[in-house]
């Protein structure tokens, strides 16, 4: 029970948000209307992705000093899990954009920058494939991961602020900022973020364990 409570919490929260997100009332805003519910399913993906990428950087830093293979596997598996959430974030956003903005890809700065930051992590995975020797691969890919992380922060948090976005809450669009996000939405949104972060972390721990067992089998 000690080890599983957060997994149960994560699952319960995600199930709760899936039901409550579709059933509970939402404020009626122009343009958004009922699609405002996508907030519960789209935005938590980015939170989960960023948490997973941060875990990856943490273990990359650790693996540079400890040189342990475990830390390296943790770093790469959290990137693998994070990329899934990033792609899901892009897809949920694109489907929503089709019905709200009219196109799947609307050349929105946030859309573009999110896509580029996922490219960054694909580059990281390709770099890993390019090196055969294990210790060298661990070291060089950790360095690239740490080098790329500040750039991802710039891409996702700084650059979109300099440009007008079509996203709700930007450039005069009605949005989910503190003024509009009423208490009914908060009741679902915050649990959704926490729930998806926990699920993301769970996915990562499972992937890590599988990889670890595979590695042990190879060495024996």
């Amino acid at each position, binding site marked *: 029970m000690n080890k599983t409570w957060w997994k149960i919490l994560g699952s319960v929260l995600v199930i709760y948000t899936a039901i409550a997100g579709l059933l509970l009332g939402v404020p009626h805003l122009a343009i958004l209307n009922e699609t405002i519910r996508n907030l519960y399913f789209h935005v938590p993906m980015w939170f989960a992705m960023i948490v997973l990428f941060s875990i990856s950087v943490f273990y990359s830093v650790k693996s*540079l000093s400890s040189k342990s293979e475990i830390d390296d596997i943790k770093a790469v598996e959290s990137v693998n899990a994070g990329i899934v959430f990033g792609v899901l974030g892009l897809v949920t956003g694109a489907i929503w954009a089709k019905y709200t903005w009219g196109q799947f890809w609307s050349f929105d700065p946030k859309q573009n*920058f999110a896509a*580029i*930051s996922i*490219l*960054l992590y694909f*580059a990281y995975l*390709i*770099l890993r494939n*390019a*090196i055969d020797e294990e210790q*060298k691969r661990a*070291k*060089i890919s950790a*360095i*690239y991961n*740490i*080098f*790329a992380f*500040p*750039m991802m922060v*710039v*891409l996702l948090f*700084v*650059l979109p602020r*300099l440009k007008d976005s079509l996203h709700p809450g930007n450039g005069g669009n009605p949005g989910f900022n503190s003024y509009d996000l009423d208490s009914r939405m908060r009741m679902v949104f915050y649990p959704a973020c926490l729930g998806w972060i926990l699920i993301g972390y769970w996915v990562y721990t499972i992937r890590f364990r599988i990889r670890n067992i595979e590695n042990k089998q190879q060495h024996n």
Partner: protein
Amino acid sequence: MQLAKEVKYLIHKEVLLEWRSKYTINGVLLYVVSTIFTCYLSFVSLGDKLTWNALFWIIMLFASINGVSKSFLQETKGQQLYSYILASPAAVLISKTVYNTLLMLVLTTIALGFYTLVFDSFTPPDLVMYYIAVVLGSLSFSTVFTMVSAIASKAGNGGMLMAILSFPIIIPVLILLIKLAKNAVDGLPWENSYDEIAMLLVVNVLMVATSLLLFPYLWRD
């Protein structure tokens, strides 16, 4: 002070090596000039200022990848070992970065001159601001590409990895540069560009700081 002395000596070495062979500078220069000329022949005339600006930065991007990636990729294992014995890792990285910045400055200046000569219909009204963008561009290209070329050279397969690894990192910088340069092309007052200049400087400081932190781990084999 030891560091400053080492950096000075290493830069001197780089410049001397380049001066003897003149391979990189002439090679990249010919690359830029022929690319611009090819663009001129295929576009004949550019539609508007935006295309003029974007085309210049795309040409500069590819030229600088070619120019800067030489810095670590062309060195043999023995040469690298020798300089690592003589100097500290920070000195090696700083000297390469400074040398690449100088190289890129010369290169971009000549390229800008030739570009405005060939595509003379859209010469930016605010040339000083445009030149500031070019200088900042040279600086950012060399800080990012120097570190990435070090990573790519250690990974042991040069060209393609260099492009894959550096593009996602350079795109945000490139967006800022194009925005800044566009302000100059539009002839906006300087106050409008301070944000971008500050951002570019911050990004560069960030890149140099992370490179300096990480390079000591990279060069030790």
